């Protein structure tokens, strides 16, 4: 019980690292900065591991384990404690975040070795770890919000790390502003939660909602508002536009923040609030629709991107869509499972892409690579493993988690054609994922080199970069095997582990309610569903995602290895569609025309020239002018002639005397 009683230590370690490096790192050599940064995160990982070990010894009624540290604010009934908690969901997030974070810190010591502002980078990265851990360990919405905004801040700082580059600074601002739109919804959602439940504490809210029936409309409103925050943070339609631009940041940042951890905060939050979401079917449907549509939509954009990091960025948006699809059909465990495996394989993909970029001396265009297989074998093999994982090829981590999601959607689609369409979108998206990922691999590592061999000194990355790749590759294979027994009729250990979190406050099974409403139906034993033509069809669709993934692989192989001229011909013949995809459906342009430019116009012509210059400056300058002009009038009195002063004194004295007499006379 050593660390469980001191949960704050896990947070304090990276915070201390950030403070030490931020304050003193500038004067220290890289090796010292490395030790502080990597050391603090490694210690945080060890602390998290020890916490989990102690957690496993807890009795079920002690879970979630809450540590209250101090009362943060009190205002009437509004009371917020700085409280952290550990339950099964936190355990998964804690281990994923600290472990992947540690690997990416190690990788960064190699990747950033030749960059200026080395200490600043690691200070921000440690600060990010602090806020991310705050987010996942928070025991109430307000502390969670602190972490939520903190990771947004670090995301901004790290995207704009090369702030002298205008595109990087702009991308940082875009990320910050776009997520802020979602955060507005999140904030209002938190306030609404407080208004309804008189508490922001997770345990109190969940107990309340499971014991007292609440109006479904209010719960739906709360869930939609909270989900708005998730849309911004996790880059879903329509607020996904910041994530592709965020690739301006250094690649380890893309791996840690924009793939493995921060962007999954939305999924985590929805899963955390599952007792509310489960009671708001409309909100759940919205979550599922947004997730599935985003999964499909951004996969189509990923098909034609040429920048290796942009492909991965759209792929991240797409995979986050799958996680939301899972949450939307009630399979929170599958969503969190995919979150974890995604952290492994997408973190790996970004790190490997960083290794490729490093090897190519900064080149990011896949059409200027090719044939790198023999030159950088470690990168090639690890990236291939990650690609197999994300494509959902059986045996790799991504297969188990994505299959769990699509399986859950398939089961939920029974008698619900909307969800069936979402499932279909998910399956097609899975095929597209497989296609664009293998396209990336084939373009980068196969074929003939398309770069100038004399100019680019292609070289494998140093050990501190390749070892994290290998560890993540290992996890990309075996990280999903918790669920493997299910394939042969066993149980999904991951789902079983998380089930206390998702079943403790779950609403009573819908099946029973239907029975109550319609007593004519015969009672149904648990675990049995009626056979029907639709059900038979759905059963037959179990293996479809795998088939689709393999088809995607074959299509990529055929188009980019077998006959590499075909893509160009297709781009010519389907020019309209190709341009539409290449320009990302012109969404940035549409937003610019509909929102950004009108906003700028109003800001310039109304707020600036009328309100600011007219009203505000008018008041300020007017005050000054009144003071100046009355002063220049009054200073005529200061003649320096004491006889005139004396006259004023006399006039004043007489005036006061008269006034006094009048007043006294009046009183009498």
């Amino acid at each position: 019980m050593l660390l469980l009683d001191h949960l704050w230590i896990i947070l304090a370690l990276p915070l201390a690292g950030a403070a030490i490096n931020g304050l003193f790192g500038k004067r220290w050599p890289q090796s010292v900065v490395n030790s502080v940064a990597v050391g603090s995160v490694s210690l945080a990982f060890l602390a998290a591991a020890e916490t989990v070990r102690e957690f496993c010894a807890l009795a079920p009624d002690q879970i979630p384990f809450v540590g209250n540290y101090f009362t943060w604010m009190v205002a009437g009934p509004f009371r917020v404690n700085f409280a952290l908690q550990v339950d099964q969901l936190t355990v998964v997030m804690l281990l994923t975040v600290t472990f992947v974070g540690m690997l990416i810190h190690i990788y960064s010591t190699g990747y950033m070795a030749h960059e200026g502002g080395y200490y600043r980078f690691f200070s921000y990265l440690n600060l990010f770890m602090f806020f991310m851990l705050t987010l996942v360990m928070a025991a109430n919405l307000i502390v969670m919000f602190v972490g939520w905004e903190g990771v947004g801040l670090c995301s901004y700082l790290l995207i704009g790390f090369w702030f002298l580059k205008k595109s990087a600074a702009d991308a940082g601002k875009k990320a910050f502003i776009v997520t802020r739109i979602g955060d507005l919804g999140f904030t209002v959602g938190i306030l609404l939660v407080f208004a309804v439940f008189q508490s922001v504490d997770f345990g109190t809210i969940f107990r309340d909602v499971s014991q007292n029936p609440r109006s479904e409309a209010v719960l739906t409103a709360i869930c939609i508002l909270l989900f708005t925050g998730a849309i911004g943070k996790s880059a879903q339609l329509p607020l996904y536009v910041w994530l592709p631009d965020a690739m301006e940041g250094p690649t380890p940042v893309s791996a840690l923040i924009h793939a493995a951890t921060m962007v999954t905060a939305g999924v985590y939050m929805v899963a955390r609030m599952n007792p509310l979401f489960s009671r708001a079917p409309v909100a759940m449907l919205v979550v599922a629709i947004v997730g599935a549509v985003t999964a499909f939509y951004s996969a189509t954009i990923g098909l034609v991107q040429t920048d290796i990091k942009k492909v991965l960025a759209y792929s991240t948006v797409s995979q986050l869509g799958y996680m939301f699809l899972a949450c939307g059909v009630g399979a929170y465990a599958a969503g969190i499972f995919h979150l974890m495996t995604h952290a492994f394989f997408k973190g790996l993909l970004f790190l490997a892409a960083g290794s490729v970029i490093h090897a190519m001396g900064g080149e990011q265009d896949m059409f200027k690579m090719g044939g790198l297989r023999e030159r950088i074998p470690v990168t090639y093999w690890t990236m291939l493993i990650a690609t197999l994982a994300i494509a959902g090829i059986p045996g790799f981590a991504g297969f188990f988690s994505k299959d769990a999601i699509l399986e859950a959607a398939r089961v939920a689609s029974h008698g619900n054609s909307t969800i069936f369409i979402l499932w279909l979108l998910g399956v097609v998206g899975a095929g597209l994922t497989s296609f664009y990922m293998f396209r990336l691999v084939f373009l980068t590592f196969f074929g003939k080199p398309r770069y100038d061999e004399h100019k680019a000194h292609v070289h494998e990355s140093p050990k501190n970069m390749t070892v994290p790749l290998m560890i993540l590759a290992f996890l990309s294979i075996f990280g999903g095997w918790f669920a493997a027994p299910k394939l042969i009729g066993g149980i999904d250990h991951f789902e079983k582990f998380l089930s206390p979190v998702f079943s403790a406050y779950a609403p009573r099974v819908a099946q029973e309610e239907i029975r109550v409403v319609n007593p004519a139906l015969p009672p149904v034993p648990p675990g049995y569903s009626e056979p029907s033509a639709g059900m038979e069809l759905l059963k037959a669709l179990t293996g479809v995602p795998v088939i689709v993934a393999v088809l995607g692989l074959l299509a990529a192989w055929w188009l980019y290895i077998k006959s590499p001229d075909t893509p160009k011909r297709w781009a010519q013949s389907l020019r309209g569609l190709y341009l539409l995809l290449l320009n990302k459906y012109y969404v940035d342009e549409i937003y610019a025309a509909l929102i950004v430019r009108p906003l700028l116009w109003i800001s310039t012509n109304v707020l600036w020239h009328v309100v600011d210059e007219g009203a505000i400056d008018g008041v300020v300058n007017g005050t000054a002018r009144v003071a100046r002009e009355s002063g220049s009038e009054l200073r005529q009195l200061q003649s320096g002639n004491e006889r005139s002063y004396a006259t004023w004194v006399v006039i004043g004295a007489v005036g006061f005397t008269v006034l006094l007499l009048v007043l006294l006379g009046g009183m009498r």
Partner: protein
Amino acid sequence: MSAIPISWYLVLSAVLFGLGVVAFVFKRNVITIFMSIELMLNAVNLAFVAFARARNALDGLVFVFFVIVVAAAEAAVGLAIVIMLAQHRESLNVERVNLLKL
């Protein structure tokens, strides 16, 4: 003995004070101005004494002593200033002493 009513003293005091004010405002010679200040002070002294007698109290008389002491001190400082002024400006006209004027 028929007592002179207090109002007579007060009227005299007011007249003297008024003369002092008028002299202060209209005269240009700094010595005259100085004298008019003394006149005003003594006009006030007269009022104090009159009130002290009318009310049979001593505090008015105490005030008078203070005023006389302050007037003496003022005369010492003021006349020194006048002498310096006369040496520097070779004039006692206050309108010529206007260096602080804007």
